[in-house]
C-alpha cells in the first residue's frame, strides 16, 4: 500500500470511529494538542488511559464479586472511569459508565454486573480500534509520510 493510500485509509478509519460513536469530539481536542513538540501526545494519553482503565476494571470486577457488594467503593471507580473515558473521547465507554452509575445508586447488584460487562465490552472495542489507529499512523510515519489531519465532514 502506498503512502497516499495509507493516509486515506487512516482518514476513513478515523472517520468511521466517529460515525459509530466510538469516539467523540473530545478526541479531536486531544489531536489538536499534538504538535511537533508533542508528536506522540495522543498515543501517550491513550496508553495511560488503557493502563488506568485496566486497573479500574479489575478493581470493579473484584468489588462486584464480593459476597456483599460495597457500592461505596464501586461508585467512585465507575465515576473515575467515566471521567477518564470522557476526557479522551471514548464516548460509548462513558455512556456505559453513566448507566452503570445509575444502577450503583440503586444498589442493584445484578444490573451492575451486566453494566460492568457492557462497560468492558465497549472498552475493549475502543481499545482495539485505537490500537489499530495507532498502528496505521505508525505505518505512515515509518513510510516517511505525515499523518493527515482528521477531516470530519459530517
Amino acid at each position, binding site marked *: 500500500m502506498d503512502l497516499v493510500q495509507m493516509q486515506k485509509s487512516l482518514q476513513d478509519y478515523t472517520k468511521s470511529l466517529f460515525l459509530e460513536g466510538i469516539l467523540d469530539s473530545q478526541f479531536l481536542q486531544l489531536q489538536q494538542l499534538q504538535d511537533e513538540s508533542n508528536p506522540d501526545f495522543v498515543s501517550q494519553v491513550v496508553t*495511560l488511559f488503557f493502563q488506568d482503565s485496566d486497573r479500574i476494571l479489575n478493581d470493579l470486577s473484584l468489588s462486584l464479586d464480593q459476597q456483599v457488594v460495597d457500592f461505596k467503593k464501586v461508585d467512585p471507580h465507575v465515576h473515575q472511569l467515566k471521567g477518564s473515558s470522557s476526557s479522551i473521547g471514548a464516548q460509548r465507554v462513558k455512556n456505559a459508565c453513566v448507566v452503570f452509575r445509575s444502577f450503583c445508586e440503586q444498589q442493584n447488584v445484578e444490573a451492575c454486573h451486566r453494566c460492568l460487562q457492557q462497560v468492558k465490552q465497549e472498552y475493549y472495542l475502543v481499545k482495539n480500534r485505537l490500537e489499530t489507529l495507532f498502528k496505521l499512523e505508525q505505518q505512515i510515519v515509518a513510510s516517511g509520510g505525515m499523518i493527515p489531519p482528521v477531516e470530519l465532514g459530517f
Partner: protein
Amino acid sequence: MMNPSHGRGLGSAGGSSSGRNQGGGETVVEMFPSGLRVLVVDDDPTCLMILERMLRTCLYEVTKCNRAEMALSLLRKNKHGFDIVISDVHMPDMDGFKLLEHVGLEMDLPVIMMSADDSKSVVLKGVTHGAVDYLIKPVRMEALKNIWQHVVRKRRSEWSVPEHSGSIEETGERQQQQHRGGGGGAAVSGGEDAVDDNSSSVNEGNNWRSSSRKRKDEEGEEQGDDKDEDASNLKKPRVVWSVELHQQFVAAVNQLGVEKAVPKKILELMNVPGLTRENVASHLQKYRIYLRRLGGVSQHQGNLNNSFMTGQDASFGPLSTLNGFDLQALAVTGQLPAQSLAQLQAGLGRPAMVSKSGLPVSSIVDERSIFSFDNTKTRFGEGLGHHGQQPQQQPQMNLLHGVPTGLQQQLPMGNRMSIQQQIAAVRAGHSVQNNGMLMPLAGQQSLPRGPPPMLTSSQSSIRQPMLSNRIPERSGFSGRNNIPESSRVLPTGYTNLTTQHSSSAMAYNNFQPELPVNSFPLASAPGLSVPVRKATCYQEEVNSSEAGFTTPSYDMFTTRQNDWDLRNIGIAFDSHQDAESAAFSASEAYSSSSMSRNNTTVAATEHHGRNHQQPPPGMVPHHQGYADGNSGSVRVKSERVAADTAAMAFHEQYSNQEDLMSALLKQEGIAPVDGEFDFDAYSIDNIPV
C-alpha cells in the same frame, strides 16, 4: 507573580502585552495571562495529563499533582508560588471541596473545581464553597483558556474594596478596562455548563460597574485611573496572615463586635504597619464565611467543616486562633439540640445558654447585649443550622420574615463567633423542620456549608450601619461586595451578603434589573434574588442560574431536606424577586429585601429556633409559601412582616430573626412596620401583593 493588573487587552493565552496600560511597570501585566501559574490536582492520571497539556498550550505554567495532600503541602511551602488552583471534586485522599476550603482560607487563591459529575447539587456545592468556577469533564481547551480571568478578578476585588466612591470608580475603571480588554473572554468561561450562567451574571455585575463608568470620559479617565491604580495596586504584595496577625485580627473583630466589625476600624485596632484596609477587608470576608461555616456545622454533612470543626486542622494556620471557637461551635452545634434551644429561648437569646460548649461566647454575647433582642438572636442561631432537628421549624421561619429585630444591629457582635456558635448550637438543637420551607434554607444552608444563616443576618445587621451610609452609594456597596465571582466565591460572599441586604433593600426601589450584581447579585441582579448571604448556596444558585435556575432550585429544595443551600436559594430567590417586583415603598422594599435575605437566614434560624417556641401557626404556611414558590403572596407577606414594628413584637417571640430584621431596618433608616407581622396564619394568601 503575575500582576493581573487591569485587564485591558488581556486576551488570549498567548496574548502578552496586549496593549496594556499606560503606566510603567506594566511588564508583569503584559505577560499575563501567559505564565499564569496553575496547580492542577486530579487523581485521574489520564485527565491530569490532558489538562497539563492543555494548560501548557495556553502558555500557562503548570504543576500537576495527583493527591490533594501533596497539593496542599506544595501550596503551603510556596504560598505565593501559584496563581490559581484547579482541582477535581472526587479524590480518594481528600474531598475536593475540603481542599477548596483550605486553599481559600490559607492561601486565598482562586480555585476551580471540576468533575465528570454535572449534577446541580455538586455544582452548587462548588459555588457555595467558594469555587470561582466549576468545569464539567471532559474539559475543553476553551474552558481553560479563560481561567486567568478568575485570577484577575480576585486580585481586583482584593485591591479595591472601595471605601468611597473614588475607589469604586477606580475599580469600575479597571473593570471596564478589563471588560474591554478581556472581551468575550472575561464574560464567559467557555465550555462550562451551569457555571456559565454564573460567570455571566458575575460579569453583568462588572458590566454594571463599567457602564457607570462610561459616563466619564473613558479614555481619559482610564488613563488617569490606570496610572493611579497601577501605582497603588499594581504590585500589591500578598499579605500572609500569620497566626499572630490573625489573632490580632480576631481580637480586633471581637472588640468591635462581630457585627460591627468594619475593615477600617479593625485596621485601626490592629495597628499593623503595612497592612491595608483592603487586606483586612478580604480577610474579614473569609473570616466571616468561616464563622458561618462554623455555625452551620452540624451533624449534617459536616464534612467540609471538619477542619473547622475540629479546629485541629493544622492547615488553618491563621485560623488557629479560631480553633477554640471552632470546637465550641462544634460542640454546640453538634450537640446542642433541645438543650441549647431551650436555653437560648429561655435566656431570651442569651447566648450564654449554650452551656454545652461552654462557649465563652455566650458571656460575651451577653455583654454585648446581642441578645438584648433576645429571642431574635437566639432564633437566629437556632434557625441557622440544623435543619430537621427541630420539629417546629415553621414558627421560626415566619418570624424571620419580617422581623428584623434589629438585634443584629445592636449586637456589638463583639463575638461574632460566639453568636454564631450559639446559633449553630441552637440550630443543632433544632432540626430544620422547615423542610420544604424556605427557612430551612437559612439554617440548612449553613449546615452543610457552614455559615449559619445567622451570620447572614448578623452580617446584615452589622452591615446595616455600614451600609446605610452606603446605600445611597450603590457603588460603594458594590465595591464592597464586589467579588467578581461573588456568586461563586463564598468568602467574598459574606460581606456581600450583608451589604447586599441593605443595599438591596434600597436597591429595590432604585435598582433596575440592570443593576448588576457586581458582586452581589442580590441587589441588582434582575434574576438574582440571591440574598446577601453569600455563604448560602442559594445565593450562588441565584447568581448562576439567573436563567431558569429558580425553578429547579425549588425542586431541589423541596426534595432535599438536607440541602440547606438549595432551600435558601429558593427562598432567597423568591424573596428577592418579590422585592423587586413588588411595588413596595422604600421601606417596604427595604424590609422585603431584608426579609428576603433575612428570611433565608432568619427562616432557617427561626425555624430552628422556633422549635422550642410555639410557633405561630401562621408561620409555617408562610414559609411554605416560599417553598412552594408562592412567591408573590408569600413574599409580600414576609416583607410586610419585616417592616412591621408590630411585627417586632411578634418578633420577640420569634427571636433572632426578627430582631435582625428590625435591626436591619433600623439601620437602613426604615422603621419596622408593626402590625404586619401579626398576620394570623401567616398564610401567604393574606398578603396582598
